[in-house]
């Protein structure tokens, strides 16, 4: 896997952008007409939600490549993307819950997007657990790829079923009625989380690659490696 320090730089840049976007959103952005201060949670909630979905889409891509073409690099990236996806989805649910409290008076608002994120949190959390219990690296790679493909295909179905199921209870809340003045901090934070994410996923992938190397036997005897031109 890569050796460069660029992931650290990327993560640092991401954190800087997040600091900038957050202070802008907290201190300088005008108060929203109806929701008042609570609307400022959007500047961190919406970017996290976008990036959570993005990294899970990346996990889906890694799973497809890992299934069709194989290669340990992609399995390492898959593990990194799943873990980051679970962390971000968890964060999105926490933010959504904190936002729902003052807005709707309850800790959980059955908004289709938020509920879908919660379902994804448990689905991908289960896949992380699956990876812990499978010892054979090849089976672990294939099975978790299959599970990611199956869980990802489910997302639109979960979203629509929750939206129909929820449409009777209350009008669909549209949290980010974001007018022009507000979207700058939101956009900055979105790139902030994205850069942080790219750096972390790359580092976590290298970690997964190192672990698998340590877990598997040293490369085959020299004669075989030469004969096969160093497979992999």
């Amino acid at each position, binding site marked *: 896997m890569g050796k460069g320090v660029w992931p650290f730089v990327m993560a640092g840049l991401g954190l800087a952008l997040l600091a900038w976007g957050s202070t802008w959103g907290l201190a300088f952005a005008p108060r929203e007409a109806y929701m008042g201060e609570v609307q400022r949670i959007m500047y961190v909630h919406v970017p996290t939600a976008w990036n959570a979905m993005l990294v899970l889409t990346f996990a889906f891509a890694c799973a497809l490549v890992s299934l069709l073409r194989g290669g340990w690099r992609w399995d390492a990236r898959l593990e990194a993307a799943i873990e980051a996806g679970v962390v971000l989805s968890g964060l999105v649910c926490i933010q959504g819950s904190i936002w729902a409290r003052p807005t709707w008076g309850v800790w959980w608002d059955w908004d289709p997007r938020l509920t879908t994120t919660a379902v994804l949190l448990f689905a991908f959390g289960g896949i992380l657990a699956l990876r812990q219990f499978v*010892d054979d690296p090849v089976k672990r790679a294939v099975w978790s790829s299959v599970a990611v493909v199956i869980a990802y295909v489910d997302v639109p179905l979960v979203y629509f079923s929750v939206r129909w199921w929820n449409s009777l209870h209350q009008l669909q809340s549209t949290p980010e009625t974001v007018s022009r003045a507000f979207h700058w901090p939101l956009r900055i934070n979105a790139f902030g989380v994205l850069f942080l994410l790219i750096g972390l996923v790359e580092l976590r992938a290298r970690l997964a690659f190192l672990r698998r190397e340590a*877990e598997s*036997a040293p490369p*085959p*005897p020299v*004669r*075989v*490696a030469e004969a*096969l031109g160093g497979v992999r």
Partner: protein
Amino acid sequence: MTTLAVETIGLSRRYGRRWALSDVSLGVPAGSVVMLAGRNGSGKSTLLRVLATALRPDHGSARVAGHDVRHERDQVRRQVALLGHHSFHYEALTAHENLEIAASFLGRPCDPGLLARVGLEERADDPVSSYSAGMRKRLALARVLLQDAAVVLLDEPYGELDPPGFALLDRVIAELRSRAATVIMATHLVERGRALCDHALLLEEGRLAWSGEAALMPAEAPGGSARA
């Protein structure tokens, strides 16, 4: 140059940090009966399972009955029958039903006399869960005969069999030889192996330590210690 029923080049397979099979290159002429000797854990079962496409190799290649074990698995499977440690049966079903199911997947009628040949005719309709280890081995043997394969891989076939079972197995091997099938038998019974087999292969820690005429295999080879 006689055609080779089984040929491997640098065949390797690992479990975690251990190389169960490392860099095994061998050739087995078609129609020959070969003894595979070696201590416990020397890689005998792993080699047989890789040749039967039950296990994928990590490195190297193997061709069985003219087909590659990685890329032409179905063709290999049509030509190969494996008698393994596991009897491949459904415990809840009877011997007869198990053979019927195997035959239905093979697309062949199930020869009714098969169970009689392996001495299970009076227990044919009892569930396999009530069978002793020896009877399960006989049923597994019947399943191998049902497949009528060109290459037959026997992993410790004499284990759990009683003396009549030994005689039965000798007859089966003779019959396989007479129809020019290739047989690779992993066994600890060196004397019996020398008597029945033309060639012999000796594995040590996953590596091919010796190969040649069965009769010439060193009596006290590291693996050949068990006295029947």
